[in-house]
């Protein structure tokens, strides 16, 4: 069957079977490989994308459910201010080693920082609990997110 969905701002028509996962369709049919698959069970968070602006696990969605919806991946069109701030802070704070978990974390917090401009560390930690990272021990990730949040507030205050 053919479904029509918006991916990174572009309307795409894709031929899928009903049992195809969104993560597979993004990666294999649309060549958007920034969305990583670490468990296919909704636990690791590596596959997190935005669906209509909200974080969702692409491995838990069937592609057919996306008919008429908008999906944003890390490759995304023009990056949001949140994503730009996160990228800069992740680089400075060495918040990724192998980088496999990183796209899911960036997408999760691009939405979180947008919706919680005044977030505190406890809130960040609570949300980050949904993403597994085997390399960093999480400390630098928390520091980077807090730094990105502070940088965004500074920009907003100017």
């Amino acid at each position, binding site marked *: 069957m053919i479904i029509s969905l918006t991916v990174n701002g572009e309307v795409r028509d894709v031929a899928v079977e009903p049992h195809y996962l969104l993560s597979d369709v993004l990666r294999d049919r649309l060549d958007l490989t920034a969305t990583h698959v670490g*468990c296919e*069970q909704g636990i690791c968070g590596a596959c997190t994308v935005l669906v209509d602006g909200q974080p969702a696990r692409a491995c838990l969605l069937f592609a057919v459910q996306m008919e008429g919806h908008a999906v944003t991946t890390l*490759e995304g069109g023009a990056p949001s201010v949140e994503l730009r701030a996160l990228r800069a802070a992740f680089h400075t704070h*060495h918040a990724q080693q*192998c980088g496999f*978990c990183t796209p899911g974390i960036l997408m999760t917090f691009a939405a979180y920082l947008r919706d919680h401009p005044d977030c505190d560390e406890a809130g960040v*930690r609570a949300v980050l609990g949904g993403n597994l990272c085997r390399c960093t*021990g*999480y*400390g630098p990730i928390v520091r980077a997110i807090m730094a990105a949040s502070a940088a965004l507030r500074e920009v907003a205050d100017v």
Partner: protein
Amino acid sequence: MSEREAYVGQPRPRREDHRLLAGLARYVDDIKVTGALHAAFLRSPHGHARIVSIDVTAALELPGVVTVVTGEDLAEDVTDLTVAPPIEGLRPTSMPVMPVDRVRFQGDLVACVVAADRYVAEEAMERIVVEYAELPAVSDMFAALRDDSVLVDEALGTNLVARRVHRAGDPEARLAAAPRVIEAEFHQQRQTHAPIETRGCIAQWDPGREHLTLVIGSQVPHPLRTQIVRRLGLRDSQVSVSSPDVGGSFGQKIALYREELAICALARRLGRPVRWKEDRMENLLAACHAREQWCRTRAAVDDTGRILGLTLEMVEDFGAYCFYPANYISEVVGIILTAQYGIADYGYEIRVALTNKCGVGPMRAPMAMASWVMEGTLDVIARRLGLDPAEVRRRNMLADQALPYAMPGGETLLDVNCAETMETALDEIGYAAHRPHDDGRYLYGLGLCNVVESTTYGSRFYKNSGIGGSGHEAARIIVEPDGTVSASVGMAAAGQGYETTFAQVVADGVGVRPDDVAVTLGHSDTSPYGMGSRGGRGATAGGGALYLCAAEVRAHLLRLAAHRLGLNATDGLGLRDGRIVWVRAGGSEETGLDVADLARTAYFDPLALPEGMRPGLEFYRTYDPPPMTFSNSTHACRVRIARETGRLEILDYLVVENCGTVINPLVVHGQQAGAVAMGLSGTLLENVVYDQAGRNLSATFADYTIATVADIPAIRIIARATPSSRTPLGLKGMAEGGVMGAIGAVANAVNDALSVVGAQVTCLPLTPMRLHAAIHDGIGRAAQGQEG
């Protein structure tokens, strides 16, 4: 050799980050190969069974299925893996690429489907009909070592695949004569690496050139190529191994596994590209496990807590198949156990058992248990004698003047500052004011763990220990015609940041800017043959080889520059950020020449080269590190355990470390914190569980829990680094000691807290359930620290 280290030591953010953060990284599964077929493996649901028959008819009928093969089919194309190094007490083992008539663990390979896509391959897999005759399984290593046990590998006639004994001095005599003998036990649970990127590969056979290309996340592209070539009956020149971005490995991506070899064989057989991506369940069930070890120490001590003699008894569960010599992991624990303590009379006995479980391999700090066992033993001694644990450590610790010290395990300890790291840690953690106590709601404890981390193993170590293989590393540096410096080494990164740190090393060695150094790794055709990434050898072996190679480049460029400047000798000339300068007291002066000028001469105007200098600028250098380099550290933590629930909280965690010269503090800090986190995750949470029939009960991330952000405390890292006296730049290595220290520090802190209620734990992981039982049911009470 260089006038100064300008870039080594700088906390430079990594150049790798851009592609990772932009979503432009390329992991194996991101790489498109036109026309590639997809493979899926049918795996055994039983812990141990005879394969009676396999019927693939229905699977082959499914549209899109290209072939289905069994172990019997593939045996024609691939030779068996024989692990038989000449090591006393090690029994040789052998395994085919896929089992032919008997499966030995749940998840063992039964058949492989190759189809147009993964969905079809998996559907076809479900249509394969296998008749099994289930056999009794043995999933406990102690049971496996009993005479009446089921045999895992019938060809062996026993499950005792390795037994190793080592003696220095006369520990038995010391034990017999000692005023006191104190025993302690330690049991570490089975764990697995669980990189967030699972295994996977793409094999392509070019029938015209008769050449195989394997794209695979690997720590060791060249040794992997050697394995493939041997198993497939090819020549080295017929195989290329390419490791792209790798989503974590931690020791899991070293061996050539059976799945990967089967994919290579199928690509050759079919003449078409074949790819495979492991799912998480396969990864947890059947990739590679680690760490299941039991130890008992017996220490002869005097009344002051001084150890007069020590023995270690160790049993390891190696699972169903040997991808490595079975003594190799435990042996290192035996070799380094005594660490910085002066114990002349020491012996170990190691027994390694086969069981009906997934095969094991090295996992980040395969020798991790050593620190917990040694430091835990010291704590038991202190408790039994009513002494202060730090004081007992001081009484046994070697004085700095005693280094280098011939350890009773056979290696030479030097360049460590254990007393300094320990005393600093004691101050920082507030040791003097601490007493284990109970406030009615919580039990409070403090744990210490001194770590001596064996980081880099040179060829001499392998030779001495009979393990075989080489510890050298190889570097190649090309100054390109435009002056860019291209550097490579036989290592492959999985997040360690080599592209950044090696550029810093080469920049200093040659005398150019890091931005002018390109580091390319992970391809067997373009990197020199090296031993790859394992243990903590990245900096010392890889960085060392590159630095030595870079020094040759620099000397060559300076000779060329001198000639261009009309000089007979290079005296007074230097290379600074790619420019040839006159080195003057208090500064330097430009000569007007730079590396690009020299490169143009070397490539395009060879007649302008000095007498005897050949055109071109390519350099190759190997480096074999000392037999063993050591880093050291002290870990200390304070914990509290809730009486009601057994919940453990880490209130403060710190590491005082000495890893030698630091190339990039940002990267080193990241590696150290990551290692501590992995150690904590293993100590607190992770557990591969099998039932008696050999069924794996922990093959999802819901059951095999690894640490989330909520489980990892803030980790304070305090540097007390001293350079190595024997390696280029004084590099030592690190990245594993954090695991070693975390296990010991937390387990010791927990037992300090439990001592208030007279309880002890000797088994990991330290789950709330286990701790609750220890507090309330007396489980484990008095089990630790019996006097013999």
